[in-house]
C-alpha cells in the first residue's frame, strides 16, 4: 500500500477540474485560431490590415476597428478573429469554476475561514470578468 501523503480532497477536486478545463480551453483556442487564419469566417479586422493597428494603444485600436469591449464580443461570434475570444474567455473562466467546485467540500467540512476566502476570491474574479471595471483612458 502506498503510504505517501495525499493531497486533500478539495485540492484533488480542484486539480481534476483544472486539468479538464485547461485541456478543453487549449483545444478550443487551437480550433478557433485555425478557423481564423484559414479564412473560413470573415474577420472583424482583415489579417493583412493588422500591422496598421497593432502598434496603437488598446483604446485607439478599439475606436478605429470598432472592436467590442467587455462581453460585447459575444454578439460578433460570426467573425473569425472574434471567435478566438471563446477559447481565451474559457481559459480565463476555468479558475472561477475550480473555486466553485470546492465550495461544497468546504461547507461539508465546516472550513468557514477558507470558505469565506473562496467566496471573496470568486467575487473578485467575477468582478474582473464582468467587464464593469474599466479604466478612464488618457
Amino acid at each position, binding site marked *: 500500500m502506498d503510504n505517501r501523503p495525499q493531497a486533500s480532497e478539495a485540492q484533488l477536486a480542484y486539480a481534476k477540474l483544472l486539468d479538464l478545463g485547461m485541456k478543453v480551453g487549449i483545444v478550443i483556442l487551437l480550433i478557433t485560431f485555425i478557423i481564423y*487564419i*484559414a479564412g473560413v469566417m470573415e474577420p472583424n479586422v482583415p489579417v*493583412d490590415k493588422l*500591422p496598421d493597428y497593432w*502598434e496603437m494603444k488598446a483604446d485607439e485600436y478599439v475606436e478605429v476597428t470598432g*472592436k467590442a*469591449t467587455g462581453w460585447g464580443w459575444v454578439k460578433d461570434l460570426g467573425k473569425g*478573429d472574434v471567435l478566438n475570444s471563446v477559447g481565451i474567455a474559457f481559459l480565463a473562466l*476555468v479558475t472561477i469554476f475550480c473555486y466553485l467546485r470546492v465550495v461544497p467540500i468546504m461547507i461539508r467540512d465546516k472550513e468557514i475561514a477558507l470558505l469565506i476566502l473562496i467566496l471573496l476570491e470568486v467575487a473578485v474574479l467575477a468582478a474582473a470578468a464582468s467587464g464593469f*471595471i474599466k479604466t478612464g483612458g488618457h
Partner: protein
Amino acid sequence: MSSKRTRVLIFIILALVAIFIFSATNASAEGTAVAPDGSESSLPWWGWPLILFVLCFALGIVAVLGGVGGGVLFVPIVGSFFPFNLDFVRGAGLLVALAGALAAGPGLLKKGLADLRLALPVALIASSMAIIGALVGLSLPENVTKTALGGTILGIVVIMLLAKKSEYPDVGKADSVSSALRITGVYHEPSTGQDVDWKVHRTPQGLITFVLIGFMAGMFGLGAGWANVPVLNLMMGAPLKVSVATSKFLLSITDTSAAWIYFNKGAVIPMIVVPSIIGIMIGSIIGVRLLAVAKPKAVRWIVIIMLTFAGARALLQGLGWWK
C-alpha cells in the same frame, strides 16, 4: 517524452506554419508590418506572428531550463523588439503566464507540492491588487509604462542574482494567521524518500508583500514567480519545492483577474496571443525533455543576460533615448 508525442508536436508546428503560409497567399499583399523603430518593414503581415511563434517556442525551452516563468521573459523581450503596442504585449504576456500555470497546476496540486490552503489567502490579495495594477497600467502613457517596466526588469535581474534559496527553512512556530487557517502540510520528497512536514510563519508580512507583487503583475503583465518564490520561501518559510509549486499555481489565479481587465478593455489580439501560447507550451514540453542534458547554470546566465538587455532597452525606449 514518447516518440509519438514528439511526432504530434512536430505535426502541430508544421500545420501551423502551413496554415500561416496558406492564409498569407490568400490575403492581399497590401499589409506590410511596421518595424519597432517606426519605419515601414518589408515583412508581410504574417511575418511578425510567425517570428513571435518561433521566439515563444525558444522562450518556452529557455524558461524551463532557466527555472523562470514564460511571462517574465515574454513581456520585456516582445515589448522591446516587436512592433506591437505594450498594451497588447502585456495582455498576451498575462495569457501566456496563465496558460502555463493552468497546464502545470493540476500535476503540482495532485502531488501535494502546490498547496491550496497556502495559496488561498495569498491569491485573494494578489489577484485583487492585480486588477488595480492592470487598470493603472492601461491608463498610463506607453513611455511611462515602458520606463517602469524596464526598471522593474532590471530589478528582477538583481533579485535573481542576489536572492538566496532555502531548501527547508527553519520555522520555529507558526504564526496566528497561518494557525487559524491551518496552513501546514506534508509532501513526499523522492530524492530522499522522506515525507517532509512544513508550516509557515510571518504570514501577515507575506500577505502585505503580495499587495505589491499583485499590483506589479497586473501592471506589467508579468507572471510573478520571480517575486512569489522568495516571499513564500524566505519570508514565510515554506520549503523551496512547495514555494515554487504554489507560486506557479498562484499565477493561474493572479493572472486570471488581470487578464480579464486586459481582455475586456480590448487589449487582446488573437494573432499575438495564440501563436505565443502555443509556441511557449510546445517549447516548454521540449524544454522538460532537454532538462536531463542541459546545463541549468549556463541557461540561467543566458536568461539573466537576455533580461538585462531587454530591460535596458525597455527603459531607454521609455526615456526616449533608444528608438
